[in-house]
């Protein structure tokens, strides 16, 4: 693509950039210059070590949170299914709640089908979970014979593409201890147990029996978006929808974190967290850099399963007793710590605030370790020197906390380090 003589550059450049270079017809010399300039800029943009990145990420999401709406609906007037948005949705995600308000899927179709409106509509009908009551007009309890007569609605059956024989077969499978017979446009269920109360109960139960479609999908709608037909659903069932051959499994998504994690794996759930939060913020016109959302998602998924940012999730796993105690339910943490004999090594922020010590983050991170020969003769000169060096944090090469930690706990840090490394590697495999 590029006419650069240096193959290194062309290999590294993203296609978008090289395309633009081509379009602008830059000379090789200029290209080199440009790349050098980009490199320089990049180096200036690199994060400083010690940056309290967690706090900045939390603030970047929390501050716009005060401006988000509480509304839970989508667009006004457009024929689309409503999905939870705004602050409630973000809280749902951040909490990693198991029961979310509006579970939904967006189903993409494979190439020839995604342009076919009729097919999309048909599929939308086919995958929808159909309870018996939706395709029937009436449920009649025949008290004389103690049977249940179901009057079917021919029109709805037609739209769903069902046959009465299918319905009978399906009912036979699902209704136990009774015989199912077709009688014209109605179905007669004759239970063996002739007890009025039980038959009545059975009637109520039958109403919700699922005749067709995929379980859990309450409603569907085929919509045209970006020149292709997609199906939006209420209720999710990724696992079963993937078995439908026309569905494009690479694009179809669910908004349920736990389901995504179970079906597609934790990395997919992580990406879903990022996408969902980003979507909400974008809708509200609240710009937040995606890197912070990635950090939050990574924190939630770091152990390979979903952990909410709650007292039961991430905070519970903190190493420091005092940090946990300062969040919620301090008593429980203190008692547990005392029985087990936990030790707090004061490595994070709150503990050090509590005991009035500098926090090991940002400019509090670097420090100078000076070998003092005799304890008495600390000359004022050396004192002022240390002070000076402290105020220029990035100049000092050794991290105090690092060396201190390594000294005091020779065991703990390398183990935990290598372990997490291994974990990450395994995950990548």
């Amino acid at each position, binding site marked *: 693509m590029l006419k650069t003589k240096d193959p290194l550059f062309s290999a590294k450049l993203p296609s978008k950039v090289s395309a633009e270079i081509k379009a602008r017809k830059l000379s090789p010399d200029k290209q080199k210059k440009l790349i050098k300039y980009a490199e320089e*800029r990049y180096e*200036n*943009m*690199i*994060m*400083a*070590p010690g940056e*309290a990145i*967690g*706090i*900045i990420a*939390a603030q970047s*999401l929390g*501050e*716009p*949170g*005060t401006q988000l709406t509480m*509304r839970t609906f989508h667009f*006004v*007037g*457009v024929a689309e299914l409503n999905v939870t948005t705004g*602050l409630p949705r*973000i809280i749902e995600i951040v909490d990693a709640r198991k029961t979310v308000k509006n579970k939904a899927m967006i189903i993409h179709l494979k190439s020839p089908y995604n342009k076919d409106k009729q097919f999309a509509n048909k599929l939308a009908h086919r995958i*929808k979970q159909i309870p018996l009551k939706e395709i029937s007009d009436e449920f009649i309890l025949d008290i004389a014979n103690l049977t249940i007569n179901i009057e079917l609605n021919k029109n709805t059956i037609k739209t769903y593409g069902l046959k009465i024989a299918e319905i009978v077969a399906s009912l036979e499978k699902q209704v136990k201890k009774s015989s199912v017979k077709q009688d014209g446009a109605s179905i007669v269920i004759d239970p063996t147990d002739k007890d009025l109360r039980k038959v009545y109960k059975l009637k109520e139960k039958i109403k919700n029996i699922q005749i067709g479609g995929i379980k859990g999908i*309450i*409603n*569907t*709608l085929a919509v045209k978006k970006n020149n292709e037909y997609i199906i939006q659903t*209420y209720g999710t069932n990724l696992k079963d929808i993937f078995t439908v051959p026309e569905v494009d499994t690479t694009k179809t998504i669910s908004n349920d974190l736990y389901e995504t994690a179970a079906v597609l794996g934790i990395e997919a759930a992580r990406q879903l967290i990022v996408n969902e939060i980003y979507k909400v913020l974008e809708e509200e016109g609240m*710009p937040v*850099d*995606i890197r912070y959302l990635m*950090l939050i998602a990574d*924190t939630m998924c770091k152990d390979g399963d979903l952990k909410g*940012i*709650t007292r039961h999730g*991430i*905070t519970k796993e903190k190493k420091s007793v*005092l940090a946990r105690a*300062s969040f919620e339910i*301090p*008593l429980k943490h*203190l008692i*547990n710590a005392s*029985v*087990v*004999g*936990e030790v*707090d090594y004061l490595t*994070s922020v709150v503990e050090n*605030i*509590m*005991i009035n*010590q500098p926090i090991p983050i940002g*400019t509090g*991170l670097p420090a100078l370790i000076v070998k003092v020969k005799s304890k008495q003769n600390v000359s004022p000169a050396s004192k002022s020197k*240390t002070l000076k060096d402290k105020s220029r944090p990035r100049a000092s090469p050794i991290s105090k906390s690092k060396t201190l930690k390594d000294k005091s706990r020779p065991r703990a840090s390398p183990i*935990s380090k290598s372990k997490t*490394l291994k974990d*990450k590697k395994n995950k990548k495999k």
Partner: protein
Amino acid sequence: MQKAISKKIDHIVFRVLSPAILKKLSVVNIITPEIYDADGYPVEKGLMDPAMGVIDPGMKCKTCGSYMKSCLGHFGKISLAKPVVHILFVEYLKVFLNTFCKHCGRALVVHNKLKEIGDRTKTLRNENNLGNLFKNIKDLKTEKQCPYCNAEFKVVKLVKPTNFFEGDIQIWPNEIRERLEKIPDEDLVMLGLDPSGMRPEWMIVVDLAVPPITTRSSITLQSGERSEDDLTHKLSDIVRVNQRLLENINAGAPEIIVEDLWDLLQYHVTTFFNNKVAQIPPARHRTKRELKTLAQRLEGKEGRFRYNLAGKRVNFCARSVLSADPYIDIDEIGVPTRIAKHLTIPETVTDWNIKWLKKIIKSDVYPSANYVITPDGKRRRITVDTISAILEELDIGWVVERQLLEGDVIVFNRQPSLHRLSMMGHRVKILPGKTLRINPIVCLPYNADFDGDEMNLHLPQTEEARSEVDNLLLLKHQIITPRYGLSIIGNLEDNLLGVYYLTRDLLLNREDACQLISATGIVAKLPKPARKEKGEELWDGKQIFSLILPRDLNFEHQGKIMQKGKITKGSIKIKNGTLMEGIIDKVFIGPEGGLLIHKVFGDYGPDIAADFLNKCNLLGLAVSRKIAHTISFYDLDISEEQEKDIASILVTTEKESKLLLKKLDDGKIIALPGKTMKETFETEMLRILSIARSSVGELVEKNVKEASTLVNSARAGAGDKILNIALMSGFVGQQALRGERINFGYAGRTLPHFKKDDLSPESHGFIKSGYARGVQPTEFFFNAIVGRESYMDTAMRTPKSGYMQRRLINALQDLKIEYDHSIRDSGRRIIQFNFGGDNIDVSKSDGGSINVKD
């Protein structure tokens, strides 16, 4: 005098208080429930025994001999007549009783599985998850029989809150203690517990630790009466019952009486530890108020942890009402002289500043000093009496606490501190008056306004802290927000409007041009006049604006340009620091993403960027003062033609909605899947009505009067939007409540003015009139309904998002970037290998990416 930290707390170990340690700690055994004798002196061996510390000034501690404040207090103890269960450990007691044999005390685990337990403990300890200890050996336990002594095992049940039963027989605390004492140390070690720090029998209270007086100090009321702390009240209950129990036991009272008293003692000890245990009525004060005992002291927002330990209070700060001063620099703050006189900064006396400091001390007007600190750490106030002695003695090594001076750096803060821009560094500017003053431009990051807001000011007290403020915290370093990597502060309101007018089509004569330049504070030669008309030299506004741009700035971006007297889309061009083409508006120098500000910041650094903002501000204000910009009712007038157009929009809308209504009546609406016909009708109706609103917006925008000041402020981004003009001159449109039309009120109708079951637009919140003409009473009501909804929304949102942020901060606060650029938490576990995959600091980036185009 500054002292280096000579001792640092390295770690804190949590253990259970052992009876042996308590014995060593305790200085007095309390036996009398009386606190004071008839003369008002504390009773010896009573709860206020002076051996446990002093709370009265001038008194000497009986134990350590120090005075108030230097004596931290000493523990006492109450020897209980019968042991009781420690409420906070009951769950653990239950587990211990069910894990170990009651007979021989060994763990009820099969021999060959001992190793497995050891392994599990090890992994648990590595995972820092020892809390789940007992759950993890549950499946290894042998049921029914002890593998060592073959004794039968019966499950011990805990009847909440504090009673233990084995079968139907109650096990009293003394028996529990006996059983737990049998547990050998080795078995505890095997479980990963440390017997030197925790023996299970310590969870039964035999001797109760009495906290020092200093932790439960009494207050003397104005009437001279003493009011005791809640803890003291509770302790005296315990002592009283304890003595009664002791007497009854000694007198050989019947078992049932002893057991009753024992239960009572258990109740009092339980509520002493925690007064909010389920199933136990909370202990109350004489006034029916619930007592605040140990657990309540720690918990909650007002508890020890969140109120005292994690929340610190400071000196060297000020708080006052905020007001605006657009003529100070953006990173300045106006501090009233009265405040400056009280706030001090310590200045160490050196050879170089001794002369100056002496002069300052001598002064009896504002720039003076308040205190000196001698090398041996004594603080002396500078008064008329002491001034001469201090001046004489003052020497190198002393510290002078001088008053706040102009140019000092301070930290300025407004709550709620939602992001790091809520606390920024400013330079002090001493001003008359009583309020703190900021440039209105910096309202945005603080989210401040001037309707009575107060803000806080903090003085960094060390050289190190001042350096941090100077190099990191100062407002000019914060112009680019880390949230999305664009500028967050920028010109607003009238200064934005000024720049807009200036760069649009303003022509200035020599006098005006010179005035603008001097008001902005630019030192530059007047450029060559752009035009000559009727012998008068005229300067283009763009030329004046170019003067505040850096000399070699090149910039190009889509924006608005002036072409043949009309504003159209085009590209803004800045070539070598000269604005060639285009109108500078909100997109370029406004807040929240001003592109030009970002460009200047990125290429020239914070100093130039702050300077640019300041000059922009002053220039804009100067123009604003020159140009009349007022709003009158005429600005809302629209042409007859437009009025007709708007009326026709209303007519079509009405037609369409009537058609839809008829469709509904005839049952001809095709229901959307999952929706009833009525619901489909509603969504369709909403669609029609929202189209009406957007089309009136478009109409007004298309045909605006260029001369209208309203339109101009909308164009500049300084005031409202064009849509607001549509609302005033056109019509307001549909009022949506929770995404629907307004659908409640009386049975079948929203207001009594309408017919029953009327589904027409007017009766469900469609406002046909504009604000300028005035709205109908019913329309006004609908408008108020929606207005109220938005207030409710705000009121509910604030606490929700606040809690979310607290949790986010708490979860992520210890993440930091290590020297290898990986992100790790305090346990050194890796979260990310590099930030966001590319390690880019958003606040240094070009809106989250690298821009190489120019």
